[in-house]
């Protein structure tokens, strides 16, 4: 039997998108005008990703697309078909512990995006050969912390990763 939703899908020209979301295959029908940000929040039950500016400036909406941080408010949802998306819900408490400890969050509006970019930097120490932590974090605006806590949190993560690596190399 044709349901109301089916008919809606056709008349509104919805597109079927299948992606790998936080490690799991997920399908969703999207409108051509929908942004990845809204699809995550309102259709896929992942409201951790926040909207700040809605125009690519603030970084609150940062997610990983095929492993790179992007602004989900600037990604047409249909473009993630066949791709890998990770959101802040994929981070473990241990992965954000250093940010928490260094006072990288106050009001919290920027925090989901900050945590995503920070984690990406921590996982890719080779980026520091070409960039500073501040340059890498420049797409995440924060009106509360003055950034020092954020930079300290990322540096603590990088130091921890380097230690683990050195220990691995010795054993």
């Amino acid at each position, binding site marked *: 039997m044709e349901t109301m939703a089916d008919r809606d899908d056709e008349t509104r*020209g919805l*597109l079927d998108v299948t992606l790998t979301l936080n490690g799991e295959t997920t399908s969703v029908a999207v*409108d*051509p*005008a929908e*942004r990845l940000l809204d699809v995550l929040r309102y259709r896929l039950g992942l409201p951790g990703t926040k909207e700040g500016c*809605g*125009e*690519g*400036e603030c*970084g609150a909406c*940062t997610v990983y*697309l095929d492993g*790179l*941080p*992007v*602004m989900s*408010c*600037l*990604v*047409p949802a*249909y*473009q993630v*078909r066949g791709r890998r998306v990770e959101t802040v819900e994929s981070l473990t408490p241990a992965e954000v512990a250093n940010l928490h400890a260094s006072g990288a969050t106050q009001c919290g509006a920027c925090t989901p995006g900050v945590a995503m*970019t920070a984690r990406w930097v921590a996982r890719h120490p080779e980026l520091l050969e*070409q*960039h500073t932590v501040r*340059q*890498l974090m*420049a*797409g*995440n*605006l924060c009106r509360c912390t003055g950034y020092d806590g954020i930079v300290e949190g990322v540096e603590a993560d990088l130091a921890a990763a380097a230690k683990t690596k050195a220990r691995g190399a010795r054993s």
Partner: protein
Amino acid sequence: MNVLLPASLEEACDLLAEHRAVPVAGGTDLLVEWPQQLDAHRRTYLDLSALEAELRPHRLSDEALVLGALTTYWDVLQDPAVRRAFPLLACAARQVGAIQIQARGTWAGNVANASPAADGVPVLMAYDAVLELASRDGVELVPLASFYRGYKDMRRRPEQLIRSIRLPRRRYDLQWFEKVGSRRAQAITKVGAAVTRSAAGWRVVANSVAPTVCRCPSVERLLANETPIAGPADLLPALRRDVSPIDDLRSTAAYRERVLARVLYWGLRDACPWFR
């Protein structure tokens, strides 16, 4: 809103010939206005993202660097050979927005968006980039320096896609780029310039000081003739023939002209013994 989803470049060209469609690459220009503008919702779009295998790779050979239509700033930053051969591309790429924008924004999108403040365009132009425009009818080569006719007015027919951007390889003895914005990241350029010198001569390109990013032929002649320059003010008469800055919400014409002269003077002084 309607979107066409081609699976190959050939199909994309066919669809563009049949529909008035707006190509979508990284979306970092297009989606900024998307939620607010009703006009944006009435258009038909052509998504290029499924064509990555064909259009994203870049190739560096002894003769040239060829950027694909979907090559991003991040792709260039991640390739040490390209950074060495065309260092200004990396300088400009680092200045575009922030990492999240560099990861998605394409060089071709920067060219086709035709902003006078574009940061990718001046360095491409300073390297004599040539655009390859593809359509169902074939391929047309257009030098980037003659691509813009006026504000947001391009020598690209609606059915043409920028398929690639080709930069000839040369030995450069001077390569220089500067961007002045109100903040180091996520800031639109108030004044910018890219300069190169090779056996082919000087290339001086300015952005944000005219309706389009543009070469500055009078300044290029001044440099080629090694005309003595005693300070930034000596560059102004030539600059005024080449550029026409305006007052807008980001800056004023007077500021832009003065800063461009200073930036060029201090940027080139060490390389030009005839500057005092």
